[in-house]
């Protein structure tokens, strides 16, 4: 049963450019119908991995298995996967319809069937009225949708998306994130999505694979990744984190999990403060204040989020105690 669900298996993948190692050794399995995001800073190997699945790069060693078949040596045009490129790569000399029909034409699908499939995806992306436009005559968001349609029309087993929203402005990006997620749910298609934007990854994915220097740092669902980062890299990369050393062990704590109290707080109804410090700065962020505190005896500065309805608002130079619940602390792997 499990075998059936595995759509893509990357086994023992390594990639070197000359002496430069991009991916030391990596295994990854992706299940049918998943929305998987490869997340990491630029140069972490996520795009290389995606391009290996597309066939635009060949791994130095290891195998790419799609639907039980070894496709490692197959050129891109013989693979049942399609890609949405970072800058869309729409053919500038073809109209929207011609762009979308291109893959079908190359596969030898023509006539009524091709027409019907093009009509369907145009309906899906709601760009029917722009079908005869050239890419240069469209906005970035519209081009983005055409790029997605051009890939989807081929009914690929997997859709690969290489930072497809990176070139768009914030508002449009938010809107397209939701559209893409709904599209994926509706079609039940496997999406592999590459981004360096952690917020985007958290919003859209069923599963997030965090990479750094070609190595998978953590692989799990967004909730688990956010609340239980396994190491300092993940804790830093996803959201803000404070790190506290206690008896030689490092604990990560989200700023919203840190609580502040008066230094001399007699008979308190909460756990005793673990650390004390001085408020060095307070930055107003709309719904919250970010309070920066320098810990006593160290040069370390930590940040805590405080809501307006909290008991009091702190000022610079206030002395504070910092406490948290045990359930909120995350122990880091060394």
């Amino acid at each position, binding site marked *: 049963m499990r075998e059936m669900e595995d759509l893509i298996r990357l086994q023992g993948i390594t990639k070197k450019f000359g002496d430069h190692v991009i991916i030391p050794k990596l295994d990854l399995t992706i299940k049918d119908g998943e929305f998987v995001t490869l997340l990491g800073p630029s140069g972490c190997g996520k795009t290389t991995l995606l391009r290996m699945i597309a*066939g635009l790069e060949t791994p130095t060693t290891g195998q790419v298995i799609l639907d039980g078949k070894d496709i490692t040596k197959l050129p*891109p045009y013989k693979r049942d996967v399609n890609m949405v490129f970072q800058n869309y790569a729409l*053919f*500038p000399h073809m109209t929207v319809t011609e762009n979308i029909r291109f*893959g079908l034409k190359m596969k030898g699908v023509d006539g009524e069937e091709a027409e019907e499939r093009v009509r369907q995806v145009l309906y899906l992306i709601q760009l029917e009225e722009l079908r005869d436009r050239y890419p240069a005559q469209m906005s970035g968001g519209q081009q983005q949708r055409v790029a997605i349609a051009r890939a989807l029309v*081929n009914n690929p087993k997997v859709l690969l998306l290489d930072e497809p929203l990176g070139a768009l402005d914030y508002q449009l990006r938010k809107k397209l994130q939701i559209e893409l997620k709904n599209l994926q749910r509706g079609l039940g298609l496997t999406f592999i999505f590459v981004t360096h934007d952690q917020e985007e990854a958290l919003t859209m994915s069923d599963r997030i694979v965090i990479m750094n220097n070609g190595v998978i740092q953590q692989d799990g669902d967004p909730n688990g990744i956010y609340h239980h980062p396994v190491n300092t890299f993940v804790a830093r990369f996803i959201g803000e984190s404070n790190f506290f050393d206690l008896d030689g062990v490092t604990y990560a704590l989200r700023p919203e999990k840190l609580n502040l109290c008066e230094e001399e707080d007699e008979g308190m109804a909460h756990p005793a403060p673990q650390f004390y410090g001085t408020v060095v700065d307070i930055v107003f962020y709309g719904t919250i204040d970010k309070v920066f505190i320098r810990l006593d005896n160290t040069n370390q500065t930590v940040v805590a989020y405080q809501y307006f309805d909290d008991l009091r608002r702190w000022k610079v130079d206030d002395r504070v105690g910092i406490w948290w619940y045990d359930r909120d602390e995350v122990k880091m792997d060394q």
Partner: protein
Amino acid sequence: MQKTWRSHLLLAYSLAVLAFLYLPLVILAMYSFNDSRINAVWTGFTFKWYEHLLNNRRVLEALINTLIVGCISTIVSTALGTTAAIALHRYKFKAQNAINGLLYLPILIPEIVMGLSLLVLFSQFHLPLGKTTLILAHITFCLSFVVITVGARLDGLKAEYEQAASDLYATPWQCFRYVTLPLIMPGIVAGALIAFTLSIDDFVISFFVAGPNSTTLPLYIYAMVKRGISPEINALSTVMMCVEIALVLLAEALQPSHKAKKQAG
């Protein structure tokens, strides 16, 4: 105050230099319409020198030779140069520097040296001078310009288009046929126009390798100039200038300029 004074001076100087570049050409064109045969005095407007050209059998022969040589050289050099540019763009060659040198040297070496070396070659192999030797020579000096022009277009082409085509099931040949070729077509046409312009305009190299029955228009003009000035040369030169300017402007319009860059980015 001082700044505007300087910029006016710069403008005036620049216009004067431009006038220096164009005034002789304008005067040449103007006098092709002057009624007087010998004097520089303006005696009236006429088209008769152009009519004389049309009735001059030797001019028409030279024109036909020029066009035959121009067309064949353009076709061959464009075909060869385009394939070479594609190969250079797509593959890394071990002897890349040597290849680049071989492509650029024909442009940089003095024309006279190229002309006489071809003359020596043809005579060593007992090839009679005529249209064939002219065409061989013209292809040689056009080739590099085509490679460079088409190469510039290819360099401006984003790799993603070909990758996207390949991802959309296009075999390498289909990818070339439906994506690469249409996208570099303006570059190929520009290269061909440049080759054609160079060919019909060439004097120095043709001077060495043309035979008695393969006189081209520039060679005919030279022969006439050596005999003394005549209004027919003015007319012929004016026609050639206009054709060349038109061809160059056309080629320029097809080159990847600021506009194309904006679109590509």
